[in-house]
């Protein structure tokens, strides 16, 4: 943990604030270290991180929510590419966190496990679905015996 991690956690909490349905607030998930490591591995991520930390300043954590959001909107407007990199990194660490995936499962029915090895049941194809299209006559173009043209 670095001395700036509480500030990063606060930043993440404003991006992904959770809600009363059970979505966890990003600031409570101890994501700051993963976020920092993730974003600095991406192209130009290190400079984007430095820029946002400088922009927010230590006073960010004491700001009222509306005030903090306004500051983030201002940064997004002034440095859209850098802000986008940070949002992508924030979503990346948030939506791969086990607590968040458990919420996705609870709230949507998604199975919070890797796609493999279990996968999902493979049902047989139902050819009855093709009843309409099977009635259609072939409609691809014949070329018969057209020799290749050497024109262009």
């Amino acid at each position, binding site marked *: 943990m670095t001395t700036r991690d509480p500030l990063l956690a606060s930043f993440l909490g404003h991006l992904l604030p959770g809600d009363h349905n059970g979505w966890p607030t990003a600031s409570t998930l101890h994501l700051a270290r993963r976020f920092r490591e993730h974003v600095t591995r991406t192209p130009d991520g290190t400079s984007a991180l430095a820029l946002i930390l400088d922009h927010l300043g230590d006073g960010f954590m004491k700001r009222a929510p509306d005030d903090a959001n306004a500051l983030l909107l201002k940064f997004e407007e002034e440095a859209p590419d850098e802000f986008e990199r940070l949002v992508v990194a924030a979503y990346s660490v948030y*939506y791969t966190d086990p607590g968040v995936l458990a919420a996705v499962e609870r709230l949507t*029915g998604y199975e919070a496990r*890797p*796609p493999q090895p279990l996968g999902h049941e493979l049902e047989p194809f139902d050819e009855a679905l093709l009843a309409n299209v099977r009635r259609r006559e072939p409609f691809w*173009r014949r070329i018969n015996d057209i020799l290749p043209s*050497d024109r*262009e």
Partner: protein
Amino acid sequence: MRNAPETADIVIVGAGASSAAMAWRLSGKGLKIVVLERGDWVDQHRSPSLRPDWELALQSEYHANPNIRRAPADYPVNEVDTPIKPAIFNAVGGGTIRWGAHFPRQHPSDFRVRSLDGVAVDWPLTYDDLVPYYDLNDRMMGVSGLAGDPANPDRAVRPNPPLPMCPATRALAGGFDELGWHWWPSDAAILSVDDANGRSACNSCGPCGLGCPRYARASVDVTYWRSAITAGIELRTGHVVRKLEMGKVGQVNLVRYINSNGHEGTISSQVVVVACNGLGSARLLLASGDGDRDGDGIANASGLVGRNLMLHPTAIVTGVFKEQLKSYRGPFASALYSQEFYESDRERGFVRGFQLQALRGQGPLSTALGGYMRRLPWGTGHHSRFVREFGRTVSLTVTCDDLPESENRVTLEPGNRDRWDMAIPRMYYRLGENTKRMIAFGIDRAREALEAAGARDVVVNPLARQAGFHMLGTARMGLDPKSSVVDADCRCHTVDNLMIIDGSVFPTASAVNPTPTIQAIALRAADRLLARLGMPQERAA
């Protein structure tokens, strides 16, 4: 005193889809065949799809763009002048490690574009020339599907039954039915049943692009290479071919490479085959020749090496449905397609046509990042939007035929070199006016289909940018050496022991995914080469 170079009968540069098919077809004939691949083997039994953080891999080690992925075998590409970014994979298996395995065939009309529609050029081949090789390739790759599609010529019974539909694709099929439009289940290089070679049936996990630990989704490291290597092909990984050098008789004399240990070597070969995709092959040819300078390269008397780059411009139109469809289940790119608008109809305001291909939904992270739509907003509205969209989407690509234009091209940047001291390639590409009209028309039709299917919202991505998967046309085939680089057998007009067998040789792009056609051409080229060498051939069909 210099050591004599190693010798071989045939050297193939690259180990992707075309190379694998050709090498397998040439194997077992007593020829010394050496394949040089810059990348390494990928262990699909350790696919990221087995990890909880699997979606992160799509942004990093499995990202399609080499400039973002930056894997050890990747070379940088100058992509400033193209709205469609390069999508390649440098490994044994090439792009088939990373693909969705949608496996359509071109139409007969795709081979007579000039004669039928008065634009571009004709192919020196016909659909019928390739049918036995399409069929052979379908068996080797393990294609699942259903014969009888009225949009295409009759074809042999598919090796495996079609993959199943899901609630999302059933809704889409219903939309096409309501409009009276064509649709058909995709031919997919994905097994619907176990095979006898250790490949298991698909289990609908979803992210085929991360490799398949079941080997259900075909990739040529699993299909062709295993058999080819058993039959004696020598495949060397970590070998970057930097240059092909010409001898005194108008033939390639030496293949010059550097391997992953930094060792520089040469191979002298009776035949040299280039199979590095439409970007890498053009780059190698332009970088080759007698001198140290990069420039016009070899096999380029026509001046067409690198030109006529085609990329299949693609829009993605997504429907958001009210119901939870769990649309993230099932192969993401191989479900169904519509070829209602495939053939030319000038009343539409353009020539040639497009395919609508279904794409299933994505995982949680990809959904939040926008998937095929737009990034979800941050802040208090984020989670309600996520719930509204996750698992409830299905998309249609509008994959357009792309007419060749000379100014769309791959060139070299001599002053900008990679870590193997090769000039990096630069892509220059602009959408043509015909394509712009086609894509706009296609977006409207995709919207119509999704609305008929019951989507409550339809979101349009007018041009998929990280989607330069199909790099075609940069060394096209033809009858006339003045207007083409290779002949119908993939043999260079001006360097008769040099062949190019990847998508570079496509004179036109068609509107379907090119891999089945690339592989059919490569198999046919192998047979034609065997005939030239006086070697026995097997029947294709």
